[in-house]
């Protein structure tokens, strides 16, 4: 499936502040030896309708719910908000910003943020 391909995170100009109300998606952060892994829940967002940009120190994730209720459907019960998603996370010196990677699958966006070289565990050889 094509949606499993990696999405390259790109660096762009600051994005314009959105006026419509946005929903902050649920997310998790975990850590491995070499990277931080952020998983963001954005069900209902197609790969082409989401964007991850680095704006200064901020990692800005936006996703549009492109699905529209067809005219002939009548809403009976509503629990799912129709707002778009927006999540802003602050990056610090521990992240190597040039090598962020992301992929989207089944409504979950996974971001891989490699750790900066300086904070990686370092083994020091002892010269005898």
């Amino acid at each position, binding site marked *: 499936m094509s949606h499993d391909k990696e999405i390259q995170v790109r660096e762009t100009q600051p994005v314009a502040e959105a006026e419509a109300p946005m929903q902050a998606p649920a997310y998790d952060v975990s850590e491995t030896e070499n990277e931080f892994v952020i998983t963001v829940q954005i069900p209902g967002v197609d790969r082409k309708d989401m964007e991850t940009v680095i704006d200064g120190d901020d990692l800005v994730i936006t996703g549009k719910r492109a699905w529209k209720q067809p005219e002939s459907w009548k809403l*009976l*019960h509503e629990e799912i908000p129709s707002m778009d998603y927006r999540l802003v996370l602050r990056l610090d010196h521990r992240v190597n910003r040039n090598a962020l990677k992301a992929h989207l699958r089944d409504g979950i966006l996974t971001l891989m943020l490699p750790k900066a070289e300086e904070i990686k565990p370092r083994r020091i050889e002892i010269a005898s």
Partner: protein
Amino acid sequence: MKLIRYKTSPMLDPVSSLAELREEMDRLFGYTFPSLRPAVEPLWQSACPVNLYRENDRYILRAEVPGFDKKNLQIEVVDGSLVLSGHASTGNKKDTAEESGETRFTRNIPLPDEVDVTQIKAEYQNGVLTVSLPKKAEVKPRQIAIEVK
């Protein structure tokens, strides 16, 4: 409790406003889906928010359940209710035991009698489960032959 949206004067279009009034009453008294309560979120489960729609000959349910593989999602009809459930392990194999976890959810949606449970269809895309619930065809009078002995 949800507020009902404000309507402009019903005098302008009495026919369609009558139909709308019925819809509102249905919604108020839960006529169509008798005891559908908002998604509750027990600590050990994730939420499964749903939207319900009505079309001419079917109902449509949309549920947001991100992060599941199609084979880990289950849809059943149990005792007149649609039961959606799913489980997924979020842990990576190389993670330590403390880091691996499991996500699961269950949602029970009472179905109106008019739904033809043999024709229910579902699809899963971008973490959204869409279930089509067709209404039964008009109930035909059935003739039962009685054997006279």
